[in-house]
Protein backbone atom coordinates (compact mmCIF):
# COMPACT_ATOMS: atom_id res chain seq x y z
CA UNK A 1 0.00 0.00 0.00
CA UNK A 2 2.82 2.36 0.85
CA UNK A 3 4.39 1.93 -2.55
CA UNK A 4 1.13 2.88 -4.19
CA UNK A 5 1.05 6.02 -2.11
CA UNK A 6 4.59 6.93 -3.07
CA UNK A 7 3.74 6.49 -6.75
CA UNK A 8 0.92 8.92 -6.11
CA UNK A 9 3.13 11.44 -4.37
CA UNK A 10 5.71 11.31 -7.14
CA UNK A 11 3.09 12.14 -9.69
CA UNK A 12 1.85 15.06 -7.62
CA UNK A 13 5.33 16.54 -7.42
CA UNK A 14 5.73 16.22 -11.18
CA UNK A 15 2.54 18.06 -11.87
CA UNK A 16 3.51 20.86 -9.52
CA UNK A 17 6.66 21.51 -11.47
CA UNK A 18 4.86 22.59 -14.58
CA UNK A 19 3.10 25.51 -12.95
CA UNK A 20 3.38 27.96 -15.81
CA UNK A 21 1.95 25.59 -18.33
CA UNK A 22 -0.82 24.77 -15.91
CA UNK A 23 -1.95 28.36 -15.59
CA UNK A 24 -2.04 28.70 -19.34
CA UNK A 25 -3.97 25.46 -19.50
CA UNK A 26 -6.53 26.67 -16.99
CA UNK A 27 -7.13 29.88 -18.91
CA UNK A 28 -7.45 27.87 -22.11
CA UNK A 29 -9.97 25.56 -20.47
CA UNK A 30 -11.98 28.49 -19.11
CA UNK A 31 -12.07 29.98 -22.58
CA UNK A 32 -13.47 26.73 -23.98
CA UNK A 33 -16.07 26.68 -21.25
CA UNK A 34 -17.17 30.23 -22.05
CA UNK A 35 -17.38 29.50 -25.75
CA UNK A 36 -19.46 26.39 -25.27
CA UNK A 37 -21.77 28.16 -22.85
CA UNK A 38 -22.18 31.08 -25.23
CA UNK A 39 -23.11 28.59 -27.92
CA UNK A 40 -25.68 26.78 -25.82
CA UNK A 41 -27.18 30.03 -24.61
CA UNK A 42 -27.61 31.17 -28.20
CA UNK A 43 -29.24 27.84 -29.01
CA UNK A 44 -31.52 28.08 -26.00
CA UNK A 45 -32.51 31.62 -26.91
CA UNK A 46 -33.71 30.31 -30.26
CA UNK A 47 -35.56 27.34 -28.83
CA UNK A 48 -35.88 26.96 -25.07
CA UNK A 49 -35.75 23.46 -23.64
CA UNK A 50 -37.20 21.52 -20.79
CA UNK A 51 -33.92 21.32 -18.97
CA UNK A 52 -32.98 24.70 -17.51
CA UNK A 53 -29.97 26.38 -19.12
CA UNK A 54 -28.32 26.58 -15.72
CA UNK A 55 -28.02 22.82 -15.64
CA UNK A 56 -26.37 22.74 -19.02
CA UNK A 57 -23.99 25.50 -17.94
CA UNK A 58 -23.11 23.63 -14.76
CA UNK A 59 -22.60 20.51 -16.83
CA UNK A 60 -20.12 22.30 -19.09
CA UNK A 61 -18.14 23.77 -16.22
CA UNK A 62 -17.83 20.49 -14.39
CA UNK A 63 -16.79 18.76 -17.60
CA UNK A 64 -14.13 21.36 -18.32
CA UNK A 65 -12.89 21.43 -14.74
CA UNK A 66 -12.35 17.68 -14.57
CA UNK A 67 -11.27 17.33 -18.17
CA UNK A 68 -7.92 15.84 -17.18
CA UNK A 69 -9.59 12.82 -15.73
CA UNK A 70 -10.88 11.84 -19.11
CA UNK A 71 -7.76 11.40 -21.07
CA UNK A 72 -5.24 8.62 -21.12
CA UNK A 73 -1.92 10.24 -21.61
CA UNK A 74 1.06 8.58 -20.11
CA UNK A 75 3.84 10.06 -22.16
CA UNK A 76 6.42 8.45 -19.94
CA UNK A 77 5.08 5.09 -20.88
CA UNK A 78 5.92 5.55 -24.51
CA UNK A 79 9.54 6.27 -23.71
CA UNK A 80 9.66 3.51 -21.16
CA UNK A 81 8.49 0.96 -23.65
CA UNK A 82 10.88 2.19 -26.30
CA UNK A 83 13.84 2.19 -23.98
CA UNK A 84 12.97 -1.11 -22.37
CA UNK A 85 12.62 0.45 -18.95
CA UNK A 86 9.51 -1.64 -18.66
CA UNK A 87 11.77 -4.44 -17.60
CA UNK A 88 12.43 -2.63 -14.34
CA UNK A 89 8.72 -2.47 -13.62
CA UNK A 90 8.43 -6.17 -14.20
CA UNK A 91 11.05 -6.81 -11.60
CA UNK A 92 9.20 -5.00 -8.90
CA UNK A 93 7.60 -7.07 -6.19
CA UNK A 94 4.24 -5.41 -6.74
CA UNK A 95 1.36 -6.67 -8.69
CA UNK A 96 1.73 -5.00 -12.04
CA UNK A 97 -1.97 -4.44 -12.33
CA UNK A 98 -2.16 -2.69 -9.00
CA UNK A 99 0.91 -0.64 -9.72
CA UNK A 100 -0.39 0.76 -12.97
CA UNK A 101 -3.83 1.21 -11.52
CA UNK A 102 -2.45 3.43 -8.79
CA UNK A 103 -0.34 5.24 -11.33
CA UNK A 104 -3.26 5.95 -13.63
CA UNK A 105 -5.42 7.12 -10.76
CA UNK A 106 -2.69 9.35 -9.41
CA UNK A 107 -2.19 10.92 -12.81
CA UNK A 108 -5.88 11.66 -13.22
CA UNK A 109 -6.38 12.97 -9.74
CA UNK A 110 -3.37 15.22 -9.50
CA UNK A 111 -3.83 16.61 -12.98
CA UNK A 112 -7.44 17.52 -12.49
CA UNK A 113 -7.63 18.60 -8.87
CA UNK A 114 -5.06 21.30 -9.31
CA UNK A 115 -6.89 22.72 -12.26
CA UNK A 116 -10.43 22.06 -11.15
CA UNK A 117 -10.28 24.13 -8.00
CA UNK A 118 -9.29 27.47 -9.59
CA UNK A 119 -11.63 26.87 -12.48
CA UNK A 120 -14.60 26.15 -10.28
CA UNK A 121 -13.84 29.17 -8.14
CA UNK A 122 -13.89 31.30 -11.28
CA UNK A 123 -17.06 29.62 -12.50
CA UNK A 124 -18.84 30.30 -9.23
CA UNK A 125 -18.13 34.01 -9.53
CA UNK A 126 -19.88 34.34 -12.87
CA UNK A 127 -23.45 35.63 -13.04
CA UNK A 128 -26.39 33.25 -13.11
CA UNK A 129 -26.82 31.61 -16.46
CA UNK A 130 -23.10 31.79 -17.09
CA UNK A 131 -21.58 30.38 -13.96
CA UNK A 132 -21.83 27.14 -12.11
CA UNK A 133 -24.88 26.76 -9.95
CA UNK A 134 -25.13 25.30 -6.49
CA UNK A 135 -25.92 21.62 -6.15
CA UNK A 136 -29.55 20.59 -6.01
CA UNK A 137 -29.19 19.72 -2.33
CA UNK A 138 -26.58 18.61 0.15
CA UNK A 139 -27.41 14.92 -0.25
CA UNK A 140 -27.21 15.46 -4.00
CA UNK A 141 -23.74 16.88 -3.60
CA UNK A 142 -22.66 13.94 -1.47
CA UNK A 143 -24.02 11.48 -3.96
CA UNK A 144 -22.29 13.36 -6.74
CA UNK A 145 -18.97 13.16 -4.92
CA UNK A 146 -19.45 9.47 -4.36
CA UNK A 147 -20.31 9.16 -8.03
CA UNK A 148 -17.14 11.01 -8.97
CA UNK A 149 -14.95 8.70 -6.93
CA UNK A 150 -16.63 5.60 -8.33
CA UNK A 151 -16.45 7.08 -11.79
CA UNK A 152 -12.73 7.66 -11.37
CA UNK A 153 -12.19 4.06 -10.29
CA UNK A 154 -14.27 2.91 -13.22
CA UNK A 155 -12.35 4.84 -15.85
CA UNK A 156 -9.00 3.96 -14.31
CA UNK A 157 -9.95 0.32 -14.59
CA UNK A 158 -10.93 0.91 -18.19
CA UNK A 159 -7.67 2.59 -18.97
CA UNK A 160 -5.75 -0.15 -17.26
CA UNK A 161 -7.21 -2.56 -19.76
CA UNK A 162 -5.95 -0.40 -22.58
CA UNK A 163 -2.61 -0.37 -20.84
CA UNK A 164 -2.50 -4.15 -21.01
CA UNK A 165 -2.95 -3.99 -24.75
CA UNK A 166 -0.33 -1.30 -24.97
CA UNK A 167 2.14 -3.56 -23.23
CA UNK A 168 1.49 -6.11 -25.89
CA UNK A 169 1.74 -3.94 -28.95
CA UNK A 170 4.55 -1.72 -27.67
CA UNK A 171 3.05 1.31 -29.38
CA UNK A 172 0.45 3.05 -27.27
CA UNK A 173 -0.40 5.89 -29.56
CA UNK A 174 -3.03 4.26 -31.72
CA UNK A 175 -4.88 2.48 -28.95
CA UNK A 176 -4.73 5.33 -26.49
CA UNK A 177 -5.98 7.70 -29.18
CA UNK A 178 -8.96 5.42 -29.77
CA UNK A 179 -9.81 5.29 -26.09
CA UNK A 180 -9.50 9.04 -25.79
CA UNK A 181 -11.84 9.57 -28.70
CA UNK A 182 -14.46 7.26 -27.26
CA UNK A 183 -14.14 8.95 -23.91
CA UNK A 184 -14.48 12.42 -25.36
CA UNK A 185 -17.72 11.61 -27.13
CA UNK A 186 -19.42 9.22 -24.79
CA UNK A 187 -18.59 10.97 -21.55
CA UNK A 188 -20.38 14.11 -22.57
CA UNK A 189 -17.36 16.28 -23.14
CA UNK A 190 -17.90 17.28 -26.76
CA UNK A 191 -21.63 17.65 -26.28
CA UNK A 192 -23.41 17.25 -22.96
CA UNK A 193 -25.14 13.89 -22.92
CA UNK A 194 -28.19 15.71 -21.65
CA UNK A 195 -28.53 17.28 -25.08
CA UNK A 196 -28.37 13.98 -26.88
CA UNK A 197 -31.65 12.53 -28.15
CA UNK A 198 -33.49 10.90 -25.27
CA UNK A 199 -33.40 7.46 -26.83
CA UNK A 200 -29.64 7.63 -27.22
CA UNK A 201 -29.18 8.78 -23.64
CA UNK A 202 -30.84 5.65 -22.33
CA UNK A 203 -28.08 3.52 -23.85
CA UNK A 204 -25.04 5.76 -23.49
CA UNK A 205 -25.57 6.38 -19.79
CA UNK A 206 -25.26 2.66 -19.20
CA UNK A 207 -21.77 2.52 -20.71
CA UNK A 208 -18.66 2.85 -18.55
CA UNK A 209 -17.53 6.01 -20.40
CA UNK A 210 -20.44 7.97 -19.07
CA UNK A 211 -19.74 6.95 -15.50
CA UNK A 212 -16.82 9.27 -14.93
CA UNK A 213 -18.41 12.66 -15.31
CA UNK A 214 -21.91 12.41 -16.72
CA UNK A 215 -23.25 10.31 -13.86
CA UNK A 216 -21.94 12.47 -11.01
CA UNK A 217 -22.85 15.70 -12.78
CA UNK A 218 -26.45 14.63 -13.18
CA UNK A 219 -26.59 13.80 -9.50
CA UNK A 220 -25.15 17.22 -8.70
CA UNK A 221 -27.64 19.19 -10.77
CA UNK A 222 -30.52 17.05 -9.69
CA UNK A 223 -31.32 15.86 -13.20
CA UNK A 224 -30.99 12.46 -11.67
CA UNK A 225 -33.25 12.57 -8.63
CA UNK A 226 -31.96 11.27 -5.32
CA UNK A 227 -34.20 8.29 -5.57
CA UNK A 228 -32.22 7.09 -8.53
CA UNK A 229 -28.87 7.63 -6.83
CA UNK A 230 -28.51 4.09 -5.44
CA UNK A 231 -29.19 2.62 -8.86
CA UNK A 232 -26.56 4.85 -10.50
CA UNK A 233 -23.95 4.16 -7.86
CA UNK A 234 -24.64 0.46 -8.12
CA UNK A 235 -24.20 0.63 -11.88
CA UNK A 236 -20.86 2.33 -11.41
CA UNK A 237 -19.78 -0.24 -8.87
CA UNK A 238 -20.85 -3.01 -11.20
CA UNK A 239 -18.70 -1.65 -13.99
CA UNK A 240 -15.75 -1.31 -11.64
CA UNK A 241 -16.00 -4.97 -10.73
CA UNK A 242 -16.31 -6.12 -14.33
CA UNK A 243 -13.53 -3.93 -15.69
CA UNK A 244 -11.16 -4.69 -12.84
CA UNK A 245 -11.69 -8.40 -13.23
CA UNK A 246 -11.15 -8.16 -16.97
CA UNK A 247 -8.07 -6.05 -16.43
CA UNK A 248 -6.46 -8.44 -13.99
CA UNK A 249 -7.17 -11.31 -16.35
CA UNK A 250 -5.53 -9.59 -19.28
CA UNK A 251 -2.56 -8.43 -17.27
CA UNK A 252 -1.81 -11.85 -15.92
CA UNK A 253 -1.92 -13.28 -19.38
CA UNK A 254 0.28 -10.55 -20.81
CA UNK A 255 2.68 -10.58 -17.95
CA UNK A 256 3.60 -14.15 -18.82
CA UNK A 257 3.97 -13.19 -22.46
CA UNK A 258 6.20 -10.23 -21.73
CA UNK A 259 8.50 -12.31 -19.59
CA UNK A 260 8.74 -14.82 -22.37
CA UNK A 261 9.56 -12.11 -24.91
CA UNK A 262 12.30 -10.76 -22.76
CA UNK A 263 11.39 -7.12 -23.40
Amino acid at each position, binding site marked *: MRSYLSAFRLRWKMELQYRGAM*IGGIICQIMFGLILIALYRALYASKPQEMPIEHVVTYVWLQQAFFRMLLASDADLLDKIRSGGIAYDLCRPLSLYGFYYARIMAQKMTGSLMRAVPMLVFASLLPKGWGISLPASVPALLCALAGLVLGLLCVSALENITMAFTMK*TLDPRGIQAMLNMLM*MVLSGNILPLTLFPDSWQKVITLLPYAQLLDAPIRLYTGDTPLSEAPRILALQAGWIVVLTALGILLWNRHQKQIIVQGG
Partner: protein
Amino acid sequence: MNTIKLYLRSMIMLIRCQLEYPVSFFLQTFAQFIMEGSEMLAVILIVDRFGRVNQWEAGDLFFFFGMMSVTFYLTEIFGRGITGNFPYLIRTGQMDTILLRPRGVLTQVLCSATDPRRITCVGIGIVSLVIGSNLAKIQWTWLKALAMAEAVMLGGVLILGLFLIEAIFVIYSVKSVELVNALTYGGRSACEYPVDIFPKPLRILFTAIAPFALVLHVPSGYILGKPLYSWPAWTAFVCPLSGTVFFAIIYCFFRLALRHYRSTGS
Protein backbone atom coordinates in the same frame (compact mmCIF):
# COMPACT_ATOMS: atom_id res chain seq x y z
CA MET B 1 9.51 26.80 -57.94
CA ASN B 2 12.56 25.10 -56.62
CA THR B 3 11.11 25.74 -53.19
CA ILE B 4 7.90 23.98 -54.09
CA LYS B 5 9.88 21.04 -55.38
CA LEU B 6 11.76 20.89 -52.09
CA TYR B 7 8.51 21.08 -50.16
CA LEU B 8 6.90 18.28 -52.12
CA ARG B 9 9.91 16.01 -51.80
CA SER B 10 10.08 16.67 -48.06
CA MET B 11 6.40 15.85 -47.70
CA ILE B 12 6.80 12.60 -49.59
CA MET B 13 9.70 11.54 -47.46
CA LEU B 14 7.92 12.40 -44.22
CA ILE B 15 4.89 10.40 -45.24
CA ARG B 16 7.11 7.45 -46.06
CA CYS B 17 8.65 7.74 -42.59
CA GLN B 18 5.21 7.63 -41.01
CA LEU B 19 4.18 4.66 -43.08
CA GLU B 20 7.06 2.72 -41.57
CA TYR B 21 4.66 2.17 -38.70
CA PRO B 22 1.52 1.33 -40.64
CA VAL B 23 -0.64 -0.09 -37.88
CA SER B 24 -0.15 2.83 -35.58
CA PHE B 25 -0.63 5.19 -38.49
CA PHE B 26 -3.97 3.77 -39.55
CA LEU B 27 -5.19 3.47 -36.00
CA GLN B 28 -4.45 7.13 -35.43
CA THR B 29 -6.02 8.13 -38.72
CA PHE B 30 -9.10 6.19 -37.71
CA ALA B 31 -9.07 7.86 -34.30
CA GLN B 32 -8.99 11.22 -36.05
CA PHE B 33 -11.96 10.14 -38.09
CA ILE B 34 -13.87 9.30 -34.94
CA MET B 35 -12.91 12.56 -33.31
CA GLU B 36 -13.96 14.77 -36.15
CA GLY B 37 -16.95 12.56 -36.78
CA SER B 38 -18.06 13.15 -33.23
CA GLU B 39 -17.65 16.90 -33.64
CA MET B 40 -19.89 16.65 -36.64
CA LEU B 41 -22.19 14.40 -34.67
CA ALA B 42 -22.48 17.21 -32.14
CA VAL B 43 -23.61 19.52 -34.93
CA ILE B 44 -26.09 16.91 -36.15
CA LEU B 45 -27.50 16.40 -32.67
CA ILE B 46 -27.69 20.13 -32.05
CA VAL B 47 -29.53 20.62 -35.33
CA ASP B 48 -31.79 17.73 -34.40
CA ARG B 49 -32.71 19.22 -31.06
CA PHE B 50 -32.69 22.94 -31.78
CA GLY B 51 -33.36 23.16 -35.48
CA ARG B 52 -31.89 26.60 -35.97
CA VAL B 53 -30.07 29.51 -34.37
CA ASN B 54 -31.39 32.98 -35.17
CA GLN B 55 -31.47 33.25 -38.95
CA TRP B 56 -29.19 30.29 -39.47
CA GLU B 57 -30.86 27.03 -40.36
CA ALA B 58 -29.64 23.46 -40.43
CA GLY B 59 -27.94 23.65 -43.82
CA ASP B 60 -26.18 26.87 -42.87
CA LEU B 61 -24.81 25.34 -39.69
CA PHE B 62 -23.44 22.33 -41.56
CA PHE B 63 -21.85 24.66 -44.06
CA PHE B 64 -20.11 26.75 -41.42
CA PHE B 65 -18.87 23.64 -39.68
CA GLY B 66 -17.57 22.22 -42.95
CA MET B 67 -15.73 25.43 -43.86
CA MET B 68 -13.86 25.45 -40.57
CA SER B 69 -13.06 21.75 -40.69
CA VAL B 70 -11.73 21.78 -44.21
CA THR B 71 -9.69 24.93 -43.64
CA PHE B 72 -8.25 23.95 -40.29
CA TYR B 73 -7.28 20.41 -41.16
CA LEU B 74 -5.92 21.18 -44.59
CA THR B 75 -3.67 23.66 -42.82
CA GLU B 76 -2.59 20.97 -40.40
CA ILE B 77 -1.75 18.64 -43.24
CA PHE B 78 0.30 21.12 -45.23
CA GLY B 79 1.46 23.43 -42.51
CA ARG B 80 2.22 21.02 -39.71
CA GLY B 81 5.77 22.27 -39.59
CA ILE B 82 4.43 25.48 -38.11
CA THR B 83 1.26 24.23 -36.48
CA GLY B 84 2.70 21.45 -34.41
CA ASN B 85 6.37 20.86 -35.00
CA PHE B 86 7.83 24.27 -34.34
CA PRO B 87 8.10 24.07 -30.54
CA TYR B 88 9.77 20.68 -30.94
CA LEU B 89 12.28 22.09 -33.40
CA ILE B 90 13.28 24.81 -31.01
CA ARG B 91 13.36 22.68 -27.88
CA THR B 92 15.50 19.96 -29.46
CA GLY B 93 17.90 22.40 -31.06
CA GLN B 94 16.98 21.32 -34.55
CA MET B 95 16.55 24.99 -35.32
CA ASP B 96 20.34 25.16 -35.40
CA THR B 97 20.42 22.54 -38.11
CA ILE B 98 17.90 24.61 -40.02
CA LEU B 99 20.02 27.73 -39.68
CA LEU B 100 22.96 25.80 -41.06
CA ARG B 101 21.25 25.15 -44.38
CA PRO B 102 21.12 27.62 -47.26
CA ARG B 103 17.35 27.93 -47.33
CA GLY B 104 14.81 30.19 -45.71
CA VAL B 105 13.86 29.37 -42.16
CA LEU B 106 10.12 29.31 -42.70
CA THR B 107 10.55 27.18 -45.82
CA GLN B 108 12.49 24.58 -43.89
CA VAL B 109 10.07 24.66 -41.00
CA LEU B 110 7.17 23.98 -43.34
CA CYS B 111 9.16 21.14 -44.87
CA SER B 112 9.84 19.61 -41.49
CA ALA B 113 6.49 18.05 -40.75
CA THR B 114 3.17 16.96 -42.11
CA ASP B 115 0.11 15.33 -40.57
CA PRO B 116 -1.56 13.22 -43.25
CA ARG B 117 -3.72 11.54 -40.60
CA ARG B 118 -5.94 14.58 -40.72
CA ILE B 119 -7.14 13.65 -44.17
CA THR B 120 -10.15 11.93 -42.63
CA CYS B 121 -11.04 15.16 -40.86
CA VAL B 122 -10.89 17.04 -44.14
CA GLY B 123 -13.11 14.35 -45.60
CA ILE B 124 -15.70 14.84 -42.91
CA GLY B 125 -15.53 18.57 -43.47
CA ILE B 126 -16.25 18.07 -47.15
CA VAL B 127 -19.19 15.82 -46.31
CA SER B 128 -20.53 18.52 -44.03
CA LEU B 129 -20.13 21.12 -46.77
CA VAL B 130 -22.02 18.96 -49.21
CA ILE B 131 -24.83 18.30 -46.76
CA GLY B 132 -24.98 21.97 -45.89
CA SER B 133 -24.96 22.99 -49.51
CA ASN B 134 -27.87 20.69 -50.29
CA LEU B 135 -29.95 21.56 -47.25
CA ALA B 136 -29.43 25.29 -47.70
CA LYS B 137 -30.04 24.97 -51.42
CA ILE B 138 -27.05 27.08 -52.35
CA GLN B 139 -27.12 28.52 -55.85
CA TRP B 140 -23.53 27.92 -56.87
CA THR B 141 -21.76 30.32 -59.20
CA TRP B 142 -18.15 30.64 -60.26
CA LEU B 143 -17.89 33.71 -58.08
CA LYS B 144 -19.08 31.80 -55.04
CA ALA B 145 -16.66 28.98 -55.72
CA LEU B 146 -13.88 31.54 -55.94
CA ALA B 147 -14.96 33.08 -52.63
CA MET B 148 -14.84 29.65 -51.01
CA ALA B 149 -11.41 28.84 -52.37
CA GLU B 150 -10.11 32.20 -51.23
CA ALA B 151 -11.62 31.75 -47.77
CA VAL B 152 -10.06 28.32 -47.32
CA MET B 153 -6.63 29.44 -48.49
CA LEU B 154 -6.50 32.65 -46.51
CA GLY B 155 -8.02 30.87 -43.55
CA GLY B 156 -5.00 28.63 -43.72
CA VAL B 157 -2.75 31.67 -43.70
CA LEU B 158 -4.54 33.02 -40.63
CA ILE B 159 -4.16 29.73 -38.81
CA LEU B 160 -0.48 29.54 -39.69
CA GLY B 161 -0.12 33.02 -38.25
CA LEU B 162 -1.76 31.94 -35.01
CA PHE B 163 0.57 29.00 -34.63
CA LEU B 164 3.49 31.25 -35.45
CA ILE B 165 2.64 33.11 -32.25
CA GLU B 166 3.15 29.89 -30.37
CA ALA B 167 6.55 29.51 -31.99
CA ILE B 168 7.50 33.03 -30.95
CA PHE B 169 6.47 32.26 -27.37
CA VAL B 170 8.65 29.16 -27.36
CA ILE B 171 11.66 31.09 -28.61
CA TYR B 172 11.27 33.55 -25.77
CA SER B 173 10.75 30.67 -23.34
CA VAL B 174 7.39 31.90 -22.23
CA LYS B 175 6.09 29.34 -19.80
CA SER B 176 2.38 29.53 -20.54
CA VAL B 177 2.41 28.83 -24.24
CA GLU B 178 -1.01 27.29 -23.83
CA LEU B 179 -2.53 30.75 -23.79
CA VAL B 180 -2.18 30.83 -27.55
CA ASN B 181 -4.14 27.61 -27.72
CA ALA B 182 -7.09 29.49 -26.26
CA LEU B 183 -7.02 31.70 -29.31
CA THR B 184 -6.23 29.05 -31.90
CA TYR B 185 -8.24 26.04 -30.75
CA GLY B 186 -10.80 28.19 -29.03
CA GLY B 187 -11.23 30.03 -32.27
CA ARG B 188 -11.64 26.81 -34.15
CA SER B 189 -14.28 25.49 -31.78
CA ALA B 190 -16.17 28.75 -31.61
CA CYS B 191 -16.07 29.60 -35.28
CA GLU B 192 -17.43 26.26 -36.32
CA TYR B 193 -20.60 28.24 -35.74
CA PRO B 194 -21.49 31.65 -37.22
CA VAL B 195 -19.91 34.33 -35.12
CA ASP B 196 -22.98 36.51 -34.78
CA ILE B 197 -24.65 34.08 -32.40
CA PHE B 198 -22.01 34.85 -29.79
CA PRO B 199 -22.03 37.73 -27.30
CA LYS B 200 -20.10 40.87 -28.15
CA PRO B 201 -16.77 40.13 -26.44
CA LEU B 202 -16.34 36.87 -28.33
CA ARG B 203 -17.47 38.49 -31.53
CA ILE B 204 -14.86 41.20 -31.19
CA LEU B 205 -12.20 38.65 -30.30
CA PHE B 206 -12.79 36.61 -33.42
CA THR B 207 -13.34 39.54 -35.73
CA ALA B 208 -10.75 42.08 -34.75
CA ILE B 209 -8.05 40.05 -33.04
CA ALA B 210 -8.07 36.58 -34.55
CA PRO B 211 -10.23 37.39 -37.57
CA PHE B 212 -11.80 33.98 -38.19
CA ALA B 213 -15.10 35.72 -38.79
CA LEU B 214 -13.72 37.98 -41.48
CA VAL B 215 -11.86 35.20 -43.24
CA LEU B 216 -14.41 32.40 -43.09
CA HIS B 217 -17.79 33.64 -42.00
CA VAL B 218 -18.21 36.65 -44.27
CA PRO B 219 -17.60 34.57 -47.42
CA SER B 220 -19.77 31.76 -46.03
CA GLY B 221 -22.61 34.19 -45.42
CA TYR B 222 -22.28 35.49 -48.95
CA ILE B 223 -22.28 31.97 -50.42
CA LEU B 224 -25.33 31.00 -48.39
CA GLY B 225 -27.16 34.07 -49.58
CA LYS B 226 -27.41 35.38 -46.02
CA PRO B 227 -24.61 37.92 -45.81
CA LEU B 228 -23.20 38.40 -42.32
CA TYR B 229 -24.48 41.69 -40.86
CA SER B 230 -25.97 42.24 -44.32
CA TRP B 231 -22.65 43.37 -45.66
CA PRO B 232 -22.30 43.87 -49.42
CA ALA B 233 -20.98 41.13 -51.68
CA TRP B 234 -17.54 42.57 -52.26
CA THR B 235 -16.71 42.13 -48.56
CA ALA B 236 -16.74 38.38 -49.17
CA PHE B 237 -13.62 38.84 -51.25
CA VAL B 238 -11.90 41.60 -49.32
CA CYS B 239 -12.40 40.54 -45.71
CA PRO B 240 -10.43 37.28 -46.05
CA LEU B 241 -7.38 39.38 -46.81
CA SER B 242 -7.29 40.16 -43.12
CA GLY B 243 -5.79 36.72 -42.74
CA THR B 244 -2.82 37.82 -44.78
CA VAL B 245 -2.52 41.04 -42.80
CA PHE B 246 -2.58 39.07 -39.56
CA PHE B 247 0.11 36.72 -40.79
CA ALA B 248 2.27 39.58 -42.00
CA ILE B 249 2.14 41.29 -38.60
CA ILE B 250 2.99 38.10 -36.74
CA TYR B 251 5.76 37.36 -39.24
CA CYS B 252 7.46 40.64 -38.34
CA PHE B 253 7.50 39.62 -34.71
CA PHE B 254 8.77 36.24 -35.78
CA ARG B 255 11.78 37.81 -37.49
CA LEU B 256 12.51 39.64 -34.26
CA ALA B 257 12.20 36.40 -32.35
CA LEU B 258 14.62 34.71 -34.74
CA ARG B 259 17.10 37.48 -34.16
CA HIS B 260 16.73 36.95 -30.44
CA TYR B 261 17.27 33.23 -30.88
CA ARG B 262 20.42 33.83 -32.85
CA SER B 263 21.86 36.09 -30.23
CA THR B 264 21.16 33.83 -27.29
CA GLY B 265 21.83 30.42 -28.75
CA SER B 266 19.81 27.41 -27.71
